[in-house]
């Protein structure tokens, strides 16, 4: 990608650069007018784009086929409109029908697809011993096995976590903490990568590095 030459593109680039600095003025300095202005602009623009995109989608998926004679499209259209009755207290009950339909369809589809990939495949992978003789594979295998069994035991609330259950449930809690720590670490690192992208953009607009 080369540095843009068209005036509008260059203006767009610099507007983005200034807006980015306005947003970063909050963590780098403190909450201020520039930050709030950029924040409100961001929310407004995002909302506008979302509304336009979804409106176009409804037109494309529903209204256009309806006007072309696909009379069945009236069903999703009516169901969609019923959702807006949430805004009128007297007729709010009507919105329960599309919600019920969505939840029901979601559950049905979810259950149909979940059993094999999410349960069966995952369990088979967990209980299958490594075929190679590498030490690290066996360590991973045992680590996952112990972690899985102990973590499940931690959520077994039918029995008190004492006696023979005391040690495995404590180990299970440790595994859960390690798992949550890894999730949190990954989240932080993802945000850092986004920041890296912004740092790159900062330098690219200033032409200090190639675009």
């Amino acid at each position, binding site marked *: *990608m080369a540095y843009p030459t068209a005036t509008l593109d260059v203006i767009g680039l610099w507007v983005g650069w200034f807006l980015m600095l306005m947003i*970063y003025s909050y*963590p*780098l*300095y*403190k909450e201020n007018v520039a930050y709030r202005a950029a924040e409100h602009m961001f929310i407004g623009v995002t909302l506008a*784009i*979302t509304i336009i*995109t*979804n409106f*176009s*989608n409804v037109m*494309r*998926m529903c209204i*256009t*086929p309806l006007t072309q004679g696909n009379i069945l499209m009236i069903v999703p259209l009516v169901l969609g409109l019923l959702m807006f009755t949430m805004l009128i207290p007297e007729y709010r009950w009507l919105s329960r029908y599309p919600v019920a339909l*969505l939840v029901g*369809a*979601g559950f049905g*589809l*979810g259950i*149909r*697809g*979940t059993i*094999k*990939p*999410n349960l069966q*495949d*995952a369990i*088979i*992978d967990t209980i299958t011993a490594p075929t190679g003789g590498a030490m690290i594979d066996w360590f991973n295998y045992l680590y996952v096995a112990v972690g899985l069994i102990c973590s499940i035991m931690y959520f077994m609330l039918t029995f008190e976590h004492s006696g023979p259950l005391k040690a495995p449930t404590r180990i299970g809690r440790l595994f859960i903490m390690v*798992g949550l720590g*890894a*999730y949190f670490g*990954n*989240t*932080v*690192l*993802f945000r*850092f*990568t*986004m*920041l*890296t*992208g912004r*740092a*790159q953009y*900062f*330098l690219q607009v200033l032409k*200090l*590095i190639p675009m």
Partner: protein
Amino acid sequence: MASGHYWVKSVDSTREAASKMSALSKLADIDRRVFYWILFIALMVPFLNPIGFPITIAPNTQDLYDGITGDQVDEGEVWIINFGYGVSAWSECHPAVTVCTKALFREGAKIIFIGPHYDVELTYNKLQDTCREDFATKEYGVDYVFLGYFTGGESVVAQLASDIASVFPQDHFGTPIGDIPMMDGVEDVHDIDGVLSSDTGDYGGHFMTQWQGPYGTKLAEVGIAMNGSTDLPRWQAGNFFGVSVGSRGGAELELLIGELGEATTAMDSISVSHLLLVLAIIIGNLGTITEKLGGKE
């Protein structure tokens, strides 16, 4: 006298220890803005002076690359690339998607681009820019098509498996799907040879439960680093034939295809950010432990 001398010495050493402790405990009270400034500046330095940390190829990335190149892809196969990420995650997902698009095009595959993010058009335009040479040799509607935005989560992914035209009666530019030569005979999951889902959310999971599970469709994931701990077990279980994790995965794929790009450039900066984070954790913990030892509430 002797005991008095001992007492003075003892008081001196206690004061000395307390002053050392207060210096260390100050570490826990460093203004977070200081850290942010250091981070913001330190992230830029590797872009100006690349360090060149070595990059090794992870087996999950190698599997992904192997699955979209060589004997694994025949000419004329139809693949779906799902842009499940917005502009904010370009630095994480886009380099890997760029490499995958290049690899599939070079194997002669046809690609359908779709995306559940409202800014999907921007991502598609960006891809056209980052794969300019490859798109130049391909014809829209014959070798690739951009069906555009879709919404509805897992239900729509399931509907796509049954009837693509019911979700996308037209492409993004308003051309009826029946008028697109490439879509002739491409009606449902059975006409698709593989799916690459790149996500900040879990559309890869939806394709897994609605496509890979019931129909055995080849499926790979180009995910953000945050999703690595979800995606990698799915790769180990064989649901994904390969996984690219974050921009690190992108850098590995750039290395595999032999065209270094955005991810490779960013890797040094990302490594520096990780080192700084580790340093910050050590400093914070040192400060907190010192506070506790000093009895400060």
